């Protein structure tokens, strides 16, 4: 079963950042369970076959104050996809650092290597003021300002800074069905 992790501080943001991911999984007939990161326990984490950590709003960095809730990632061996804030979390857990780079709206990016079925130039939807840099991840795609897609050097952990639930559903489909 897929575990979807909601990192939004505001309840209403669930509809904007989590439900669109749920809708994509429903269209693929993939069973999932959604939980807020503050509700996670060892049992739920161990039941998950894969994990998607969703993004949140531009003004919401509350999850960065609760990084202890994500310490389980270091011992997790199954695939994780981190989207925007979820990518920040993946990078930080592996000693990464956050840096400033604001991008809002349609943003051109370039994939240097194939990443979850994507390659070459793409137009994606960005909504972030930070990005993460970690030496334990390889960069697969970049925009003019920062890394946009990363993968852990040895573990099946993928991060995208842009929002694939907007315009790039195929990336989520590839993560669900091909990883």
């Amino acid at each position, binding site marked *: 079963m897929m575990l979807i992790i909601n990192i939004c501080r*505001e*309840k*209403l*943001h669930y*509809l*904007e950042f989590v*439900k*669109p991911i749920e*809708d994509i999984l429903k269209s693929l007939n993939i069973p999932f369970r959604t939980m807020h990161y503050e509700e996670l326990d060892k049992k739920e984490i161990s039941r998950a076959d894969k994990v998607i950590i969703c993004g949140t*709003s*531009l*003004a*919401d960095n509350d999850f960065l104050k609760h990084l202890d809730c994500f310490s389980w990632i270091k011992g997790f061996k199954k695939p994780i996809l981190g989207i925007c804030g979820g990518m920040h979390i993946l990078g930080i857990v592996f000693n990464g650092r956050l840096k400033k780079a*604001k991008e*809002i*709206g*349609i943003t051109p990016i370039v994939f240097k290597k194939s990443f979850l079925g994507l390659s070459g130039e793409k137009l994606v*939807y960005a*909504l972030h*003021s930070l990005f993460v840099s970690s030496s334990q991840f390889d960069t697969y795609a970049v925009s003019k300002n920062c890394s946009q897609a990363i993968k852990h050097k040895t573990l099946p952990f993928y991060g995208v800074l842009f929002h694939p*639930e*907007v*315009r790039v559903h195929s990336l989520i489909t590839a993560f669900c069905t091909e990883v």
Partner: protein
Amino acid sequence: MISFLIIIPDKKGEFYISLIFICLMKLGILWSGGKDSAYTSFLAKKYGYELACLISIIPKNQDSFMFHPSSAEQIKKQAKVMSIPLVLKRTIGKKEIELIDLKEAIKEAKEKYKIQGILTGAMASVYQASRVQKICNALKLECFNPLWQKNPIEHLHDLLKDNFTAVIVKVSAQGLDNSWIGRILDKNAIDELIASSHTYKINPAGEGGEYESFVLNCPLFKHKIGGVN
């Protein structure tokens, strides 16, 4: 802010009364008068947010990139039946100038009604959503788009389920002729829109500007408002 009294038992079996204050986030709604801004407001209220004011921009230009050309008088009627104050601005409706006017209106709402966030009915328009995000970011406001990426057919069915009465006031798409103007978005109309979306590849919820709607009644209204010319 809402407040209420609760009675709490202590370990000795005695009771004491406590006054609890809960601060709800105050939101300004980008209000066009149509079904999407009304439904997004309904959702925000359902999730426990305070609808502090409506913000409406009336463009002179019929082909505004950002706003529906609505009637100021009709929007005032909607604000009245919701008992929510209205910040109303007019714009010539030219690209970029209308964004400056929108920013000014949101700034006014922030100062006057102490809003902490903006609520929009954006579903798929990256152009509109990203411009509002930029304004909110500049004014240090949260931005909420509860209909973002929502399936348009699911949205239309939710409008019916939650007792929204909206009328079509403008059409601009193949498959939608002038006979649609004045039609209520009831089950038959929705079924026809869904059928047209398959035939003509239009968005059945009108997100691509295929049609504009105006809400006559919904759970936020104290009573139904009169018809629209």
